[in-house]
């Protein structure tokens, strides 16, 4: 695959009124790459994807595509890019007509039935069962998959997906995963996917970036510990957990501020350690362990009272400690490890 940048963004700014601003000082996306976008709700993922698909124009700055500025009338260029929205909208037509619509507006009239059949197959919807259904005769996940099929049929050069698996069942998520992957192999499609499902995302993309408060950040999952933080005598602040235990933190800027804890800052122990300088030693149960292919690391989730804390470990450490889901562990972190946004 080529590595010439397909997209180059320079000083791009987009605003909604005065409550949100997305700013991308620079970003380049190589042709044929597969980029994941994650981040909290309202971070700006959808906004970024709309800019990349030329559905919205930036207020400031330029987006170069293939080294060129794109103007509105460059239909042949913008038609090579297609986006699937977070809440897909189906045209008030049959499933067949929905999937075939993109071909029709491109005047590609050959072999439509076969192509529609193929696209529906890719998303796991049998043609004979679904092609003649009306748009409203579908379940939530089926509708989402029809919308995806209507994008896949276009063989786009850039495929942009916003939460494509939100209400899709696990089998279909897998199917979509396969479909998208084979697409990339066959056509060298550039893929940009926003999702909250970090695991699923890491299986389809080469790299993940995070959009938070309108700024791009490198992806680094974090634990969140919401307030209230109560000031105690020894200069620390504590948050009470539902089972009576406490988490201690150094100088949160406000009582209700949420503290962030990086998974790499948490140490996992299989026995209760003593004589340690860390303020926080919390017992918990491992609920999940995930192999992160991009980083070759294991993410471990443990439940501590009502919290679920994520820790990043090496494979070797996991093996050495003989960790497994359901096992009791102790999580250690310093009161000073918290970051406040």
């Amino acid at each position, binding site marked *: 695959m080529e590595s010439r940048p397909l997209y180059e963004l320079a000083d791009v700014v987009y605003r909604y009124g005065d409550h949100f601003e997305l700013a991308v000082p620079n970003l380049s996306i190589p042709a044929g790459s597969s980029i994941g976008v994650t981040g909290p709700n309202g971070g700006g993922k959808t906004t970024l994807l709309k800019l990349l698909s030329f*559905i919205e124009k930036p207020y400031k700055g330029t987006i170069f595509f293939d080294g060129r500025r794109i103007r509105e009338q460059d239909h042949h260029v913008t*038609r090579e890019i297609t*986006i699937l929205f977070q809440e897909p*909208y189906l045209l008030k037509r049959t499933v067949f007509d929905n999937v075939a619509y993109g071909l029709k*507006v491109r005047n590609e009239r050959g072999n439509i039935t076969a192509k529609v059949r193929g696209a529906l197959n890719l998303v796991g919807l049998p043609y004979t069962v679904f092609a003649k259904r009306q748009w409203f005769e579908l379940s939530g996940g089926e509708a989402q998959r029809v919308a995806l099929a209507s994008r896949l049929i276009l063989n786009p050069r850039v495929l942009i997906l916003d939460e494509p698996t939100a209400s899709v069942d696990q089998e279909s998520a897998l199917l979509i995963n396969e479909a998208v992957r084979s697409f990339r192999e066959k056509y060298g499609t550039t893929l940009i996917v926003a999702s909250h499902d970090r695991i699923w995302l890491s299986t389809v993309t080469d790299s993940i970036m995070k959009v938070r408060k309108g700024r791009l950040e490198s992806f680094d999952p974090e634990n969140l510990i919401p307030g209230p933080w109560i000031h105690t005598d020894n200069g620390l602040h504590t948050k009470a957990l539902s089972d009576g235990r406490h988490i201690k933190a150094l100088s949160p800027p406000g009582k209700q501020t949420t503290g962030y804890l990086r998974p790499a800052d948490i140490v996992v122990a299989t026995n209760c350690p003593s004589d340690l300088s860390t303020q926080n030693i919390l017992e918990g149960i491992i609920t999940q362990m995930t192999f992160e292919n991009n980083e070759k690391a294991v993410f471990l989730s443990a439940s501590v009272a009502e919290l679920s804390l994520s820790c990043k470990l090496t494979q070797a450490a996991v093996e050495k400690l003989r960790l497994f889901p359901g096992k009791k562990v102790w999580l250690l972190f310093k009161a000073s490890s918290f970051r406040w946004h």
Partner: protein
Amino acid sequence: MDYIFNGFLKAVELLASGNPETYSAVFTSLKVTSLSIASSLIVGIPLGFMLGYFDFTGKRQVRAVVDTLLALPTVVVGLLVYAFISRRGPMGELGLLFTIPGIAAAQTILITPIVISLTATAIESLDRRLGMTLIALGARGRQIIVASLLEARYAVLIAVVTAYGRAISEVGASMMIGGNIKWHTRTITTAIALETGKGEFALGIALGIVLLSLALFLNFLLMFLKRRRIA
């Protein structure tokens, strides 16, 4: 009261006996409204789409003006058009006065605001995701218009039906421009006005019933077409 009942009887009689004057008026009405509906759709639907779809400064003002034109009295439209197509008017050479195309032109002015306003509302009432979805799927220009109108098809249809109702029932402009000339420009409504003016109320009602039957027939036709499209 009697004349309502008599009007019914007479309506049946007029239609059944193939009364030539009645049929002439029916066909004139149909010709006029076909022309005026066609031209108001050609003009009004794209304008209505633009007014509903695009955001531009002054949009709300334009909208208020179009909505105001819904209150255009037919006689005033008749007068305005007359001022233009009278022999002494700037378009007098065309000889449109007392002709069917002349009436249709006046009606077009009358009903185009209805088409524009109701189409714009139909487009505005569409899901905000539609426009983006069409663009994402590659629709451009005219394709976006056509697909949006298809999505709003029932609301657009009612725009057409409302405009049609206004056109076929209006009398002021038809009278002023057409002149109610028997066998030529006498429509059902001008005939009704004539008969009512003569005090022939039963005949007036009969012709009214004829007109409504015509409208009913067309609406039922539409209903079946609608059912065929969406099972």
